[in-house]
């Protein structure tokens, strides 16, 4: 897929102990493997984002095992309790092995 680009929304600042909300979106067709080519009638092979991981300072805080029933351009919203400043890293794994990633830092006081 041309130009897969993740978007994430993480608050820039929070107080220690706050439960923050994180939103993520990535443009991906999420070919389910259930469709057939209109012209040839052949099944279109599955090609989806099959896993999403959010880490904070290297530790996994949230993960999603993704199946073909997740819509195109997968969107995930979840919460994290932050105790210290640090960096979130987000990774999306494609069926073809490609890993898309992005990072965001947060200042916790």
């Amino acid at each position, binding site marked *: 897929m041309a130009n897969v680009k993740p978007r994430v929304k993480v608050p820039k600042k929070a107080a220690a102990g706050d*439960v*923050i909300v994180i939103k993520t979106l990535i443009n991906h067709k999420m070919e*389910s493997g*259930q*469709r*057939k080519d*209109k012209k040839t009638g052949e099944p279109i092979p599955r090609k989806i984002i099959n896993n999403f991981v959010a880490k*904070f300072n290297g*530790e*996994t*805080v*949230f*993960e*999603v*095992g*993704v*199946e*073909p*029933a*997740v*819509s*195109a351009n*997968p*969107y*995930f*919203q*979840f*919460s*994290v*309790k932050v105790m210290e400043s640090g960096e979130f890293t987000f990774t999306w794994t494609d069926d073809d092995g490609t890993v898309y990633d992005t990072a965001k830092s947060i200042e916790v006081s």
Partner: protein
Amino acid sequence: MKTDRRNFCALSAGALTLALAGNRVATADGHAVEERIAEFTGGAEAATGTIELKAPEIAENGNTVPISVSVESPMTADNYVSEVMILATGNPLPGVATFKFSPMSGSATASTRIRLAKTQDLIALAKMSDGSVFSDTKSVKVTIGGCGG
């Protein structure tokens, strides 16, 4: 994009009323659904309550149906929600997504957008750190547009 899903939708719309609040065990996918539940719970009986699945009563398009799930839990190191699995009982494959939480989640809530092939029941199952399981079910009516569009 004329997908197979479209055909599913067209078929199911004809049987709109009958398909509602259907007896899920009786559907063709019942077996696969039961298997996924058994695999997730490890045989534990799922209790109701504690988990809430939110989904629209009527979805304008089955391609993008917003859902969210929340589980009551203190989310501490020794008492937290470890996983929530979402199943769509009327899809060709029942699996949708499995959210894996940690005590650092702070709150066991998550949202996503999903595909529903037709009007059906959604099941959410939560597994707690002590192995207990809770579930919630929601019916979603999937509509199709005007002139088959």
